[in-house]
């Protein structure tokens, strides 16, 4: 009989059934009886570790003015299960919200898709980040609203309405940030930009834990073992910035209505004294409940105010770059202080002409710097790239590029802020590719006067000034000079020597001094101290950028500065006067009456940039 043929297969099927059930029973035995880890996990589910958030480190300026502190803010929370007899309209009136907002928040809280951690037994944030004033009415009437509570945390408070770019901001941690660091939980805040981001680990402190007992419904029943296992939070480390907040304020005032940057560095230490990026915004606007609206508005603004142009903007350095060329030419022996080049209103070679302005000819190095002669530096660069001692233009170019990199160009300097750009120093391979290996000094002559392919960040220009002020070395510029109970990175304390001799630096200093006495930046002169400076007028697609790089006093310099005003015209138009005011403020601790007038004049002058997105 056919039906009997497979009769024995019933045993196979029964055995499959039995094996599966037996395997499952064994598995149950291992999970429930032999393995205790699951029971431990369950126990920890019944204990609730309440996180106590530490206070974030406070940030001071170099004169111990508190720049960023903490202030309490309040979250209104709600435990849905405990809400009884709620007078919705009364609640709305105390919190100054509409009924619609109330409904929207409630449905958000209860929606497990949008609020995955929802439980009707635990408190949920109903309204975040209210200030003392906003909460006071509600707090007095809290007893009327069963199920509602107030929890306090702290947020950043800015004592000066400046330096938003370098201070940075705090925002809620993203998923990837939580994945990368176990420290963070949902809803925690983390530094998103600037010092807040770069020094996040120092500023954030250590979280504390309060161990609480909870019942089967997740309600807190009180402290566990009288707080024996509690861990108090540790406040974050305080930071002292190299920034002079008064100088920063003046800088931001002077840059109103303009786009550009001011960076000042203390040459002896590499501490950044001020870092102004214009246009700027109020750091307070990125705190609290309106953060995301404000952020979006700034983000979509056509002048890109969120960009820290001092380290993220890369610009042609213009004639300020000639100082670096002078140093290279001197060190390579292409020129010495007696070498002269002709200038007939410019550098002319065959059909190529680089224009220059009226001055005596032929001209030697110091006056060439003072009058910012294009011709001198074109000739020098042309000689260097074509010099037979290097064997080829490529090799000459490599030597030149190495000098530039040595001076801190072409790579990010390593400032203690996120997002620093490297700028551009072209090398031989770059031109080989661009011109199919057929190029010479003339092809790339623009580099010699800080045009062409060369771009620097304002920070790199300021650092050039600091290196010249130091006669041959720099310390990597940094904004934080001191961390409480910790040391700053050794790269911010060690000197980087440029491979150019001190005498050669002195020659360039002399040129920059002459420039202030009777050259292009006489407006930078002061009766109280000797200023050295160099203007720049950087060509670009639009109107020229106005640039100034300088330092003062000449001996034992206290401040090196770079001013970059986009489309500001001649270096002397904006760069020099703004630089002069900044140096006066820092060295004398204030502005004279006449200077104050001038400061007001420049603060009120604005440049029309049109509506084009930048």
């Amino acid at each position, binding site marked *: 009989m056919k039906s009997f043929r497979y009769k024995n297969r019933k045993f196979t*099927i029964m055995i499959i059934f039995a094996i599966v059930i037996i395997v499952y029973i064994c598995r149950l035995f291992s999970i429930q009886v032999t393995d205790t880890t699951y*029971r431990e996990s369950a126990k920890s589910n019944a204990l609730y570790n309440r996180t106590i958030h530490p206070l974030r480190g406070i940030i001071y300026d170099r004169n111990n003015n508190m720049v960023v502190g903490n202030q309490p803010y309040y979250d209104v929370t709600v435990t849905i299960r405990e809400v009884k007899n709620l007078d919705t309209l009364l609640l709305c009136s105390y919190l100054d919200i509409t009924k619609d907002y109330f409904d929207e928040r409630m449905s958000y809280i209860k929606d497990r898709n949008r609020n995955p951690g929802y439980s009707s037994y635990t408190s949920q944030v109903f309204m975040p980040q209210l200030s003392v004033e906003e909460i006071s009415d509600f707090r007095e009437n809290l007893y009327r609203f069963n199920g509602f509570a107030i929890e306090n945390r702290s947020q950043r408070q800015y004592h000066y309405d400046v330096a938003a770019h370098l201070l940075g901001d705090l925002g809620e941690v993203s998923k990837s940030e939580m994945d990368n660091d176990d420290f963070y939980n949902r809803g925690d805040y983390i530094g998103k930009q600037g010092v807040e981001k770069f020094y996040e680990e120092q500023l954030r402190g250590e979280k504390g834990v309060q161990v609480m007992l909870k019942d089967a419904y997740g309600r807190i029943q009180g402290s566990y073992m009288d707080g024996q296992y509690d861990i108090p939070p540790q406040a974050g480390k305080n930071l002292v910035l190299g920034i002079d907040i008064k100088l920063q304020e003046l800088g931001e005032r002077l840059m109103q209505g303009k786009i550009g940057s001011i960076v000042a560095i203390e040459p002896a230490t590499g501490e950044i004294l001020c870092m102004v990026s214009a246009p700027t915004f109020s750091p307070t606007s990125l705190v609290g409940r309106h953060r995301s609206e404000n952020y979006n508005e700034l983000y979509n603004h056509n002048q890109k105010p969120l960009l820290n142009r001092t380290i993220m903007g890369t610009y042609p350095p213009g004639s300020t770059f000639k100082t670096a060329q002078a140093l290279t030419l001197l060190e390579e022996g292409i020129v010495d202080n007696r070498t002269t080049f002709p200038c007939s209103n410019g550098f002319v070679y065959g059909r190529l002409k680089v224009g220059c302005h009226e001055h005596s000819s032929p001209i030697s190095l110091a006056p060439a710097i003072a009058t910012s002669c294009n011709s001198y530096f074109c000739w020098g660069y042309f000689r260097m790239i074509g010099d037979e001692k290097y064997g080829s233009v490529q090799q000459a170019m490599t030597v030149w590029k190495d000098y530039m990199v040595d001076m801190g160009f072409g790579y990010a300097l390593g400032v203690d802020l996120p997002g620093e750009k490297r700028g551009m120093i072209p090398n031989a391979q770059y031109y080989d590719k661009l011109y199919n290996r057929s190029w010479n000094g003339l092809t790339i002559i623009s580099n010699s006067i800080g045009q062409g392919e060369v771009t620097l960040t304002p920070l790199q220009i300021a650092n050039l000034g600091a290196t010249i002020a130091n006669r041959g070395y720099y310390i990597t510029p940094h904004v934080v000079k001191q961390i409480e109970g910790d040391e700053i990175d050794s790269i911010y304390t060690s000197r980087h020597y440029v491979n150019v001799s001190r005498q050669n630096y002195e020659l360039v200093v002399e040129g920059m001094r002459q420039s202030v006495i009777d050259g292009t930046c006489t407006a930078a002169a002061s009766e109280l101290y000797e200023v050295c400076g160099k203007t720049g007028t950087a060509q670009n697609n639009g109107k020229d950028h106005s640039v100034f790089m300088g330092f003062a006093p000449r001996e034992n310099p206290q401040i090196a500065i770079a001013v970059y005003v986009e489309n500001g015209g001649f270096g002397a138009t904006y760069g020099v006067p703004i630089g002069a005011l900044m140096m006066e403020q820092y060295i004398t601790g204030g502005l004279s009456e006449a200077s104050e007038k001038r400061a007001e004049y420049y603060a009120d002058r604005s440049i029309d940039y049109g509506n084009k997105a930048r």
Partner: protein
Amino acid sequence: MVTKRVNILSNIDWLTVALYIIVMICGWLSICGAASDVDATQLLSMSTRPGKQLLWMVCALGLASFIMLITKDFVEKYSYLIYALSILLLIVTIFIAEDTKGSRSWIDFGGFKIQPAEFTKFTTALALARFVDTNKLDLSKWSSLLKSAVLIMVPLLLIICQKETGTAIVFLAFFLVLYREGMTGNLLLIGFCMVLFFILGIKYSDVTFANQVFSVGVWLVLSMVQIITTILVWMYSKERRITAITFYINICGMVLGMSVSMLIYPFDVTILQIILISVVILLLIFRGLMDMARQYFFIALFAICSVGYLYSVDYVFEKVLEPHQQVRINVILGLEDDPYGAGYNVNQSKIAIGSGGFSGKGFMKGTQTKLKYVPEQDTDFIFCTVGEEQGFLGSAFVLILYLGLLLRLVHLAELQTSQYCRIYGYSVACILFFHVFVNIGMVLGITPVIGIPLPFFSYGGSSLWGFTILLFLFLRMDSERTAR
């Protein structure tokens, strides 16, 4: 019909009915335990899930009594029609159902929702039984097998179209029925190996033993290929010498390699395994040519295909699939550590079960399930509540209840005199088995996370009624057998 009613009461298999009712009551108690928002007085209120479930259960008993009135001849006669109607309903559902959590499988009759896919299980069983029986199919023939498979694949594919993959997979249980009726067992073995190799190969592909350099997943699969090959040779070869050689090369070689790697010098054992398998394959082909024996070629082919399959799975997974597809598969396999997704469920369900200990926390005293740490705690993850509140004793008891029910059904099916009834009986047993296997395996973290209910246990009217119809149609057939 009236004449037979008396017979029903005396001829129905009361043991099965008793098991059915006990399982259902255990399920209801667990739903009470899982209902966090409810205190004891509300258990009977219609606004709570325990209250609703109680109503579904009473209706199910009514439904069961009604089904006992339908004669086997009636059902057998209209098997195809019922099947056709249910397929039609499935098609209609795809178009009229609303989108609930991505699936289009629920039809709303004015606040009262049913899921037609639940009922397709018994209609398919009826049609399959009728088809094999009336045509006297010999399922060891490929043509017969293919024809029967079409009957199974049609609802399966339609349910996949409804995005209810979990329910669709249940239809694979019918192949176990076909096996009983003559389908070659090799197909089961191959299907089983494919699923197992895929899951193992991916699940453990990035895992390594301590101090070892190779992937545990690849090692596991290759070891299983070696073991299965050896067993196949032992089963199909008459020459003891060949079996012995295969055993030495495969098993001893692998064990030796592992020992060396573990104790002396860690190396990639999987490469050694590939070499060993290649040697065995060459040996089998050589013997196959010498003896002109087909079985050697088949075994060699099995080994080659298995190894090829393993590496192509890895390749397809890593290179061909998009990252989001990889994540999806990983989540289904419970691999992705996604705190709000499947990984979370399985972990929390294991914690809940583990916290029950040997004897459990007591009825309504579970904290893990009540606190909603475990999602879907009264539907797909209902077994967690049993584990937590009743402990090992209670959960093992439930498993043994299911085993008893399944074995009883197989036993009854074998007693049937007509092939139609036997096939239907096996279908019932295999469908229930598949649900228990996947659902409890998922809760215990053994099988992938596939959302299908635990029969007679999970909350929900559609599934309870579907299973009740499935079971009682068979009990009616059985009672007619004993009445005769």
